[in-house]
């Protein structure tokens, strides 16, 4: 995919020079950075709310959105956002929904997802498109990020983060303890709808980098890994953003210097981060239990 000049050497400054020699790569880093920060923050709440299935569906829906936009000849970016936000509103209309959980809601989400994929296939065949573009939509591509696309990602991402900051604490309350939150006057239902729209917007952003099927690489993995590592909300949120940035940057570098797609690398690094965190937590809990002899019998009585 690259010419022979892009070769990893032991000379770090030469590598960095190579990396940013092309404008498309600079744009890929800009877009990746914006997307990583937004995905990590929204994904952190998504993991907390057990709304991963909804998040996945909203991402998959961006595929027909983009395919439809290509077919109609309008902006692909607009297609991504329109489809994901529309799907977020559909899921939010399910009575009693909180963004994941109840079986009725899961069924609706699954139905929306299947139909969306089917529409995507239809749009691609209506366009008579090339297989290459389908792969790009599903599994990501960082080659074609334009300047205007970076600006759009940045503006939308900043908007998502601003709304998230404004509703952050009540949303966290409603996510972990909805009964008490609603008794305290927190609009739990409304916050759930707003969160789904934020999630849809974020899924559409991430899809443009990782592809519709690998959105979880940035939406779930860093957040889940961070929540394994610490139970302190502030630290875990910050860690989630840090992991997402590292995973994205490492994935872009790896993809640049090899012939394999960026989606694979970002996902693999995210998977490694999650696997290591989960293993580390199990290990530290095991050591902790062994180290405190009084704990085991007390738990046996208490539970």
């Amino acid at each position, binding site marked *: 995919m690259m010419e022979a000049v892009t070769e990893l050497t032991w000379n770090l400054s030469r590598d960095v020079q190579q990396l940013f020699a092309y404008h498309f790569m600079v744009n890929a880093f800009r877009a990746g950075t914006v997307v990583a920060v937004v995905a990590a923050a929204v994904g952190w709440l998504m993991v907390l709310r057990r709304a991963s299935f909804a998040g996945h569906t909203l991402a998959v829906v961006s595929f027909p959105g983009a395919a439809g936009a290509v077919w109609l000849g309008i902006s692909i970016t607009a297609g991504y956002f329109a489809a994901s936000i529309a799907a977020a509103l559909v899921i939010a209309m399910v009575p009693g929904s909180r963004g994941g959980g109840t079986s009725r809601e899961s069924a609706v989400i699954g139905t929306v997802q299947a139909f969306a994929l089917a529409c995507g296939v239809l749009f691609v065949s209506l366009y008579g498109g090339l297989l290459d573009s389908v792969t790009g939509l599903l599994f990501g591509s960082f080659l074609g990020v334009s300047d205007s696309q970076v600006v759009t990602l940045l503006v939308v991402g900043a908007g998502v983060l601003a709304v998230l900051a404004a509703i952050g604490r009540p949303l966290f*309350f409603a996510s*972990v303890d909805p009964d008490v939150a609603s008794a305290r006057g927190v609009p739990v239902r409304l916050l759930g709808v707003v969160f789904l729209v934020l999630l849809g917007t974020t899924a559409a952003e991430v899809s443009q980098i990782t592809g519709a099927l690998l959105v979880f690489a940035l939406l779930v993995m860093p957040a889940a890994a961070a929540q394994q590592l610490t*139970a302190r909300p502030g630290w*875990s949120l910050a860690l989630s953003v840090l992991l997402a940035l590292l995973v994205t940057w490492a994935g872009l570098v790896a993809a640049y210097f090899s012939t394999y797609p960026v989606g694979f690398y970002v996902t693999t690094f995210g998977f490694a981060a999650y696997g290591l965190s989960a293993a580390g937590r199990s290990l530290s809990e095991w050591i902790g239990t062994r180290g405190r002899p009084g704990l085991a019998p007390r738990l046996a009585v208490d539970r």
Partner: protein
Amino acid sequence: MSDPDPAASPVTGAATGTPPAVQVVDAAVRLGGRTIWSGVNLDVGRGEFVAVLGPNGAGKSTLVKALLGIVPLSSGRATVLGRPPGDAGRAIGYLPQRRSFDPGLRVRGIDIVRLGFDGDRWGLPIPGGGRLSAARKEQRRRVAEVIELVGATAYASRPIGQVSGGEQQRLLIAQALVRGPQLLLLDEPLDSLDLPNQASVAALISRLCQQRGVTVMIVAHDANPILSYLDRVVYLAGGRAVAGAPAEVITSATLSSLYGTPIEVLSASDGRLVVVGEPEAPARHADRHADHSPKAPG
């Protein structure tokens, strides 16, 4: 982002002119075309420890929700701390019917308690602001104080899903207490705890009531763990209610007339009361714990 009013501290004793904690006059609630209960009268003084008793589906939780203003009264009237239901929000600490946290939830107990303090405020806490602002210091002090009060200091920093049911319940009581409420509404706080935990949580609640002057209304399935602490009981059954001192209400005569069928109250040698002959609860209420919608009576 202004901080909650620090003056919302518990009021001790019944000062002259202080409205009663709870006053319910000839109240009724209808949900889904069915009258849950009617003709309920209740006066709860400041600092009293009151139990709401009755069989499954009698509308015990509905009474609590009516006092919170979540469920409207279809007739009659109610005041809570001298205000209409729903208007006294900050001065009420509420613990909903048994909820347990997902074992995988990676949020500490102390965070759950802190949400009880400021979770309903918009915005985000500013990272690192804790050392600077007096309000944040006050918040930390309060959170640490209530956690100490319920005896949860040892496990408050562990993820809430990983502590035992009794420990979760203590943390949730701390959450309900953190704003210094004048009235605590606790919906089955002893439900699904083992007997030693029931006894210790009941003793804790009674201690709060006596030492802090907090009025406590507790929905209970079984009166025995709290019987010795109670000032008053409300017994709901068959769509009606009787309120009064425990020794007057939990008797064969009173309960028989309430249920409209012969009921026997037996006293065991250790002082425990056993109610015999309660009609079986209707089957449709069997899954009431699975249903958290405010419309569920029970």
